[in-house]
């Protein structure tokens, strides 16, 4: 019950393990097949003019665009601009959100005062603030990062503050019977108990930061993937648009995978 101690594995169990493995392989193969078929059909349909490659682009042309952009050295620069903006916006949103959520947990008075403001700020579409940020901060990276921050901050505060309050009262009582201070209750119980909540907030934040950065780049930018998408759209170069979207989806997927890896490292006790 406590340990899989025996090295002996029965035939039945071997069969079971094999069937699980087989199923996992099938899932992977199918996933890969869908990707290959999708791009294959796209390529073929465009090549035989079933669809208009001028409007929907085509994988081979996307590859060519990627190579040309790479040759003149701008591709990596655009990726770097968007990626750095996202990482900075995401980090700021998560850290500031966590800090404010801790303050709200600490002081019930503050929490009650802040509630209506959080509700209003949460339902406000943050994109509406874009022009204001641009007027205040100019057309550099600052308004874009602020956009990413604005979109992720309030959600982080609300989900973390709720998570902190849901920590088992009895666990806190246990610490109180040991004579724990409020700081000890926070660091020994509330924060570690909230690691799953924090991780899920982080996952949501990643997505929201991408949204914030790309919309920010739509509104004002001289570089970045969002800039490439808007620019490509304006000059009707759908190859450029599609290529940027593809790169964007790969980047966000990689970032998500990284967070999941981090989560596994952090929550070993599950």
């Amino acid at each position, binding site marked *: *019950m*406590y340990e899989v101690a025996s090295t002996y594995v029965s035939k039945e169990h071997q069969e079971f393990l094999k069937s699980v493995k087989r199923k996992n392989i099938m899932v992977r193969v199918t996933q890969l097949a869908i990707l290959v078929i999708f791009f294959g059909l796209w390529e073929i349909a465009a090549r035989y003019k079933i669809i208009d490659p001028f409007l929907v682009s085509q994988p081979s042309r996307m590859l060519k665009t990627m190579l040309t952009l790479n040759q003149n050295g701008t591709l990596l620069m655009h990726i770097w601009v968007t990626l750095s903006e996202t990482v900075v916006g995401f980090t700021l949103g998560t850290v500031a959100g966590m800090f404010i959520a801790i303050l709200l947990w600490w002081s019930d008075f503050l929490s009650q005062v802040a509630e209506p403001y959080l509700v209003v700020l949460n339902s406000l579409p943050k994109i509406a603030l874009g022009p204001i940020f641009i007027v205040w901060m100019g057309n550099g990276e600052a308004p874009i990062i602020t956009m990413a921050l604005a979109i992720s901050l309030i959600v982080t505060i609300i989900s973390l503050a709720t998570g902190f309050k849901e920590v*088992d009262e*009895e*666990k806190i*009582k*246990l*610490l*109180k*019977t*040991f*004579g*724990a201070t409020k700081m*000890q209750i926070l660091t*020994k*119980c509330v924060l*570690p*108990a909230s*690691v799953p909540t924090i991780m899920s907030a982080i996952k949501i934040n990643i997505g929201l930061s991408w949204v914030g950065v790309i919309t920010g780049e739509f509104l004002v930018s001289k570089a970045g993937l969002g800039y490439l998408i808007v620019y490509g759209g304006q000059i009707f170069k759908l190859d450029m648009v599609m290529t940027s979207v593809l790169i964007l989806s790969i980047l966000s997927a990689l970032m998500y995978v990284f967070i999941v890896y981090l989560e596994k490292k952090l*929550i*070993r*006790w*599950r």
Partner: protein
Amino acid sequence: MDNVMVSLKNVSFKYHTLEGETEALNDISFDVYEGEFVGVIGPSGCGKSTLLSIISGLLKPSRGSVEVNGKIGYMLQRDHLFEWRTIWQNAILGLEIQKKLTEESRSYVKDLLKKYGLWEFRNYYPNQLSGGMRQRAALIRTLALKPDILLLDEAFSALDYQTKLAISDEVYKILKNEQKTAVIVTHDISEAIAMCNRIVVLSKRPAYVKRIYEIILTSDDYSPIGRRKAPEFREYFNSIWKELDIHV
């Protein structure tokens, strides 16, 4: 045996909520002597847990006085082991909070874990252990602070019947072995008779002391399971049952 460890004198307690005030305890007085196991029993919601919170100092009585001679350890209804900490880290939690983690206290916890069969499991996480082992780990976490008096707040009520019998037996032996005094709050009449020297029966809310029973059982076996076989057990049970006066 005559040292008074806990002395309650005319303790009353009121809860204040927006809906009004609720009188939970009304003029409660009794003493607990060294080495004694005192049971507190009463209908559900009568304020038994409040009484423990007052003894432990988590709540201040509205009136009356509480005198405690010795350190207090508290056992809650469930084990409340922190699932992100290993058994070892859980066992030293109280020491960590009170900043008493020394070479000496560590080796004391180590001895306790060894003595009660958890040393090999020190690096396991709570959800890898059985209910009984978890309960033992929780007890060691409390004992690590070397309390003189243990307060058990329905400590076994979350367990199924068989486990409960086995664990209360085990905890009883450990506490007797470590020569502790205990105040045991429960709603289980047989558990109280099996474990306690005296039983304080409380009334419905606002609770007052209805009667205090001296439990004297003629049994050769002093474990709670053995005590359940004593001929007087049934008489006590019936008498306390009547005293509790439960109508559904």
